[in-house]
């Protein structure tokens, strides 16, 4: 059964804004070729996993006590609960730092910001559906 994205929660103390989209590029694993001359087929083992990056689009909503966070050099813990809170909803937990941030202001529009978070370390996925 499909799951609505409405209500998705992005838990962090450093981002201030009203999120309109979250794109999680996904985890990739580097394959290591361990084939030998006597192998009949290609053989691989799993190497390092890479959590990749997450793109967050949001409407900037400056509020006390701080405005949108600028780039940071420190990894911060984040949690994404797709579809809102609930014990059966998939949850993705990871540490990441802000790799880039852009702003956009158009006539007759709202101020938008797009952040790219670089995942640092392991990604934990719980309650997968």
């Amino acid at each position, binding site marked *: 059964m499909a799951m609505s994205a*409405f*209500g*998705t*929660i992005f838990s962090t103390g450093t981002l201030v804004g009203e*999120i*309109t989209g979250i794109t999680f590029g996904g985890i990739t694993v580097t394959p290591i070729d361990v084939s030998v001359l006597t192998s009949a087929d290609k053989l691989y083992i799993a190497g390092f996993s890479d959590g990749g990056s997450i793109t967050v689009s949001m409407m900037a909503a400056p509020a006390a006590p701080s405005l949108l966070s600028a780039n940071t050099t420190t990894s911060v813990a984040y949690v994404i609960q797709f579809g809102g809170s609930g014990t059966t909803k998939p949850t993705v937990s990871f540490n990441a730092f802000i790799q880039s941030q852009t702003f956009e202001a158009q006539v007759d529009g709202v101020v938008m910001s797009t952040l790219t978070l670089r995942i640092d370390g392991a990604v934990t996925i719980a309650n997968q559906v």
Partner: protein
Amino acid sequence: MSMEGAMRAKLATTAGVYSLVGGQTAPRVFPETRAQGSALPSIVFSTNNEESLMALGGLTARKAELEVVAIATTKASAIAIANAVINAIGGWSGSGDGTTIMHSLHLRSVSAYDAPQAGETTGAFLQTTVFSVLYT
């Protein structure tokens, strides 16, 4: 509490507008329609094409097209009222009627003429100004 209430209040309390449509005490600024045969010049306003700006966490703001029609017995008078309306709410942000107006931007204007209705001997010149209003 409404966006229309806030915009109506702004128009009705702006000297450049109310001085042209009946004065400060009883400015002729009406929602949707004016009574047939009622005094001119006057202003009628309505909301067209309102939408919600949604975030993943819920409603964050609303955006609407507000049509403000200046109605007068002469073309020059209708244009003067329309210009006063643009000066009053074009590029305006503020609050009223429990609503926060983040911006009100003039998008376009359109002119027209209303032939005399039943019971009327003269027609009316219409100058419509359309605004994009972002509010919460």
